[in-house]
């Protein structure tokens, strides 16, 4: 436990194993541990909306596992196209370092999500509206993704000094990842799970377009606030 928190602290501060110039081998294990532990924790908090009665506890585990899947599958899906972009930009030789930065970003997202978990729990205690719970979690993911840019910037710093093209590529990764991530979250739903619906790992009608639905949710929430 102590080693876990020490690693988390080093990771957040970019020290020791997680220093910019440290080799990937030693840190990869800890990056994955951080991702799994923090992802499971936030996912369990997300799933707590579904209720803590006997029979609904699986939702906590399902949501925890799905947060990890969401990040890892989105990452794997985006990686080939991002590699091609690096190749076209003429900076493919730097890709091992780019990969190091991107893997660290995944872990940072989950660490930030985990620290935001108590806010989500408080939100659930304050507000029983399902749609607002979905929106609040969306906001937490947005905050985590934006905060992880600190880590991206840290590891991308030397790359950008080498070639300014990395700066544009960094933005390209961010938009690509968020774009895919939102749709992946839609496919992997429910993370929060409506207490009126039975507990399930995936919805039967999993496929569909997230962007159309999120637009509808925002419009509906705005109408509610206005009335």
């Amino acid at each position, binding site marked *: 436990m102590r080693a876990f*928190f020490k690693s988390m*602290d080093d990771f*957040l*501060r970019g020290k020791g194993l997680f220093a910019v110039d440290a080799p990937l081998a030693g840190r990869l294990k800890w990056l994955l541990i951080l991702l799994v532990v923090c992802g499971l924790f936030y996912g369990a908090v997300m799933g707590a909306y579904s209720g803590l009665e006997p029979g609904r506890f699986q939702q906590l585990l399902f949501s925890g596992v799905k947060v990890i899947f969401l990040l890892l599958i989105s990452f794997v899906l985006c990686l080939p196209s991002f590699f091609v972009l690096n190749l076209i930009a003429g900076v493919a030789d730097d890709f091992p370092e780019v990969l190091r930065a991107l893997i660290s970003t995944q872990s*940072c997202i989950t*660490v*930030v999500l*985990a*620290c*935001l*978990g*108590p*806010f989500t*729990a*408080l939100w659930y*205690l*304050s*507000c*029983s509206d399902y749609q607002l719970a979905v929106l609040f979690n969306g906001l937490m993911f947005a905050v985590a993704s934006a*905060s992880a840019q*600190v*880590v991206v910037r840290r590891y991308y710093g030397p790359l950008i000094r080498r070639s300014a093209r990395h700066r544009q590529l960094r933005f390209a990764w961010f938009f690509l990842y968020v774009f895919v991530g939102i749709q992946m979250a839609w496919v992997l739903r429910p993370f929060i799970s409506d207490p009126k619906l039975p507990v399930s790992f995936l919805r039967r009608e999993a496929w569909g377009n997230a962007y159309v639905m999120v637009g509808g949710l925002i419009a509906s929430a705005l109408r509610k606030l206005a009335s």
Partner: protein
Amino acid sequence: MTSWLREMDSVLRGKKGDPQLLAQGMGHIRLGPLVGGCLLLGIIYGLFMGLYAVLTRTPPSFEQLAASAVKVPAVFLLTLVVTFPSLYVFSALLGVQLGPKDTLRLMMVPVAVNLTVLASLGPITGFFTLNTTSYHFMKLLNVFFFTVSGVIGLKVLLTMLRRLEAAQAPPYVGVPVQTPEGGELPKLPPEPPRPSARKTFRVWLIIYALVGAQMGWVLRPFIGAPNLPFELFRAREANIFIDIIRTIGELFSK
């Protein structure tokens, strides 16, 4: 108990913000006595808050008195539990040189000041409770006292942060600049300390205040509306900011 009061006293006298002590870290802030002191002072104010339910109900609601005594310190400590992880993670990400334990020690100082000021306002709350029947007035009075004590706590924290940044800033070694004639220009002025800590904590303070207010709402009732039966917690509904606006409206509508 004596060590709790001694620790609270040194917090109030600003001894914990001594630049020389801050330069050595946060070890001089002792968590145990501070938490103990906060619990005690929170309970004292909670008793004054809960007094309204004893005096305005027949039979007197002693359950509300006990519940308020527990809930006031709980609001502060639970707010810290909710906001501390994010404060630590964001401050570490932004390069603030404070470990988790030191961050927690630093955060306990404004909480202690907040609760001390609040407890000192307790007798005034008690006085108004004795001669006021308006529930809305009592609610707004308590909101006002919480706000005042909160603002004082925040000011103490900001002062400590300013001193901490100054104390932890690396000593600046001015390099004399050589002029072409061989003369020396005066040394450059010292660099200002990095503002990342203060910025992070300022943002956190806003979050802490918002979460604290909402935590109070989640844990309500503290005073106990005279027309409602005693409940440990009320149902999930609206939020504190909407309720404050509604209460102001109701206070002046009669």
